[in-house]
């Protein structure tokens, strides 16, 4: 898994400083083209939202960190499916919904060799 850092609560701290690059990077990762206006607007909104949240944590005396035990649930059952293959009878509709499909293969712009996984 990717490297995960532990951040300490710091209302004015460096970790929570949000700038244009952060929005641009997020837009890059989320694969959404943004206009400059949108970037500026979202930057302010994001700042406000995270500040509000950090205030909440401080009010409730909760530390900002990555440790949370999701394991606590007292589950005694697991919902597992039997390994029986089944035909999904709506494949035609899946094909119909496709924006670009040729000979039952979905078509996308070519992926350059260097960017192959």
């Amino acid at each position, binding site marked *: 898994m990717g490297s995960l850092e532990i951040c300490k609560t710091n209302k004015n701290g460096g970790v929570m400083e949000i700038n244009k690059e952060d929005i641009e990077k997020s837009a890059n*990762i989320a694969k959404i083209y943004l206009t400059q206006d949108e970037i500026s607007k979202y930057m302010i909104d994001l700042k406000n939202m995270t500040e509000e949240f950090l205030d909440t944590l401080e009010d409730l005396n909760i530390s900002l960190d990555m440790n949370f035990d*999701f*394991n606590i649930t007292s589950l005694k059952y*697991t919902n597992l499916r039997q390994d029986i293959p089944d035909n999904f009878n709506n*494949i035609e509709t899946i094909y119909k919904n496709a924006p670009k499909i040729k000979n039952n293969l979905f078509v996308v*712009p070519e992926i350059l*060799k260097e960017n192959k996984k």
Partner: protein
Amino acid sequence: MLTRRGKIMYKATIGIEVHSQIKTRSKMFCSCKVEFLSAPNTNICSICMGEPGVLPHINEKAIMLAIRAALALNARINKKSIFARKNYYYPDLTKGYQITQSIPLAENGYVVINTENGEKKINIHRIHVEEDTGKLFHTNDKVSLIDFNRSGVPLLEIVTDPVIKNEKEAISYLKRLRQIIRYIDISDADMEKGQFRCEPNISVSKDDRRGIKTEVKNLNSLKAVEKAIKYEIERQINILEKGGKVIQQTMLWDEKEQVTKTMRSKEGITEYRYFKEPDLIPLIITNEMINEQKELIPELPQSKFNRLMKEYNIGVNEAEILIDNPHIANYFEKSIEKGCGIKESLGWITTDIMGILNKSEKKFSYLKITPQHLSDLYKYIENKLINMNIAKSILHKIAFTGESVDKYIKSKNLIQITDTKSIEKIIDEVLEENPTEVKRYLEGNNKLFGFFVGQAMKKMGGKANPGIVNKLLKDILNRR
């Protein structure tokens, strides 16, 4: 392995990540069929296509097989493991994230391999289940085509600690791992079919600090893995020698040019934004599930290796060949059970049968010779009714017909000629026909003895007992 460059010794540190497809009939999170050669996009549904509103539903068999693998790899099974989302964009990834595990199904296992310095334990850091992606096909038309049949097929990810020292160890590990996977029948682990994928992580350094590592992808055979690791180690050493720094990145193995190449990517380190999969509850594994799988684990390769060597007193190389395929070792032992000689069976299996299969490129399951056949053949050898050469040629002939040994020998009249009188007659004929050679032999050219033997055997269609021929020829020549 240490590589010396001038006065400096470099050592390599390698860890390997393997993805093995799990042999289930349906996919990991939906009921679509898993089948290698289906027409494109016929084994798909709303769930594995990532349509709006769908939710994953875990395949029980996939979990059972994963438990079996964890046990066979000596790992500690986590009674509660957690699924997580690995978020990234790629056309073959239908949801825009892959469901994998953060807290894995099992941890801290190991595999034992044989090295030149004896046995070595390769530690396995973690074993977990996840789903496969669809397949991309690249055309010359400036488009790529996607087949989602493979999207959602269950995968087992096995990650070692970085304890492998060189490409030889890497291959031994991969071979052993693949054997184990086949022994416990959780996958056919066919690399060409993409059922067994290897990604080594490689770094080099002069001292105990670990160097920057790179990851190598696109390795489609064990040979490629071996070559790529060797090449990458050299490449990194060269960089360090020149005073440069190794860049942490993913490399692609170029099979044509036999080099590793940088995967051009603008993003640097990919942000996967891992978080716990909210659509799934923690996976609970019970003692019942574990015990059920324990029962299904046969004797594993390393144990079998050690046992075979001890019980049958056979060598390392032969033992390795026998254990490579779970069926071969069983085959060998059955043949001994049925009365075949150890040396003979071993030789026939490791040399002849393996040779026949390799040459015809057929799988072991195509072989029609059974352990009974070997035992029958052995009886004829033991009773000196045929010689080794004949035996070998019989194997070749009945390999894919399975004809009974008795029938075949009878029909081709292959019983060895042991009758002294007949052999003497033939020898006399040979000597008659080759007076010059006889003269030269008697003058001291001892090498011609073999020539006479060969000629005599030829006249007898190879069916004579070589030992008897040699003795009689000697006697006859001595009398001259």
